[in-house]
């Protein structure tokens, strides 16, 4: 099966490592409520409007980049896990991957609609944060579940 967007199978393990590192640092950030000075470095902000001080374009500000690194690790790791080839990549696996993607998008938006209706105030901010990653995570979970299910039905 020829596909032009899938990475070689050997990338998958690195994707998992990156994803797990990202998820654990993400959980750590949630526990400490994003209050940290770890890895505070000067960064370029295209637009910055802090609580105290003036807003401005293209400023250099100080920021803890732990949350940025965690987000990028989850997204890049997740993309690699979801879009690297299986050991035997064939049309059935390709179909499972596509079906999982469709399922993940629909499921994600149902969850989001539910959250919009029933979750308010600052708690909704957390929903928005999680929602940056849930489409990818639901996809990976669904895809691996379908793979496992197709493997468990022996002759």
């Amino acid at each position, binding site marked *: 099966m020829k596909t032009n967007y899938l990475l070689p199978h050997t990338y998958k393990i690195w994707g998992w490592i990156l994803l797990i590192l990202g998820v654990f640092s993400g959980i750590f950030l949630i526990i400490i409520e994003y209050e940290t000075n770890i890895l505070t470095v000067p960064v370029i902000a295209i637009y910055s409007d802090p609580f105290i001080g003036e807003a401005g374009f293209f400023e250099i500000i100080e920021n803890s980049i732990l949350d940025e690194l965690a987000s990028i690790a989850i997204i890049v790791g997740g993309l690699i896990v979801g879009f690297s080839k299986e*050991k035997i990549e064939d049309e059935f696996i390709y179909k499972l991957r596509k079906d999982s993607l469709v399922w993940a998008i629909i499921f994600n938006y149902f969850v989001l609609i539910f959250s919009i209706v029933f979750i308010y105030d600052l708690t909704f901010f957390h929903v928005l944060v999680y929602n940056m990653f849930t489409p990818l995570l639901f996809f990976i979970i669904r895809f691996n579940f379908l793979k496992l299910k197709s493997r468990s039905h022996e002759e």
Partner: protein
Amino acid sequence: MKNSIKVQRAIHDMTQADLAEKIGVSRQTINAMEKNKYVPSTVLSLKIAKLFKKPVEDIFFLEDND
């Protein structure tokens, strides 16, 4: 769509893994086809028919609701 892959496999004394290896797919794919959970592409159907030296119609059949 239904198929007689399982029967053909029995005639040729092949396991799912043997057939999978010969046509270059995973064993799960063969399993899913035999359980009628997956309709193979035309390319894959032709490959299977060629391997069993039969016309495609002898291995794959339409059902009433197709």
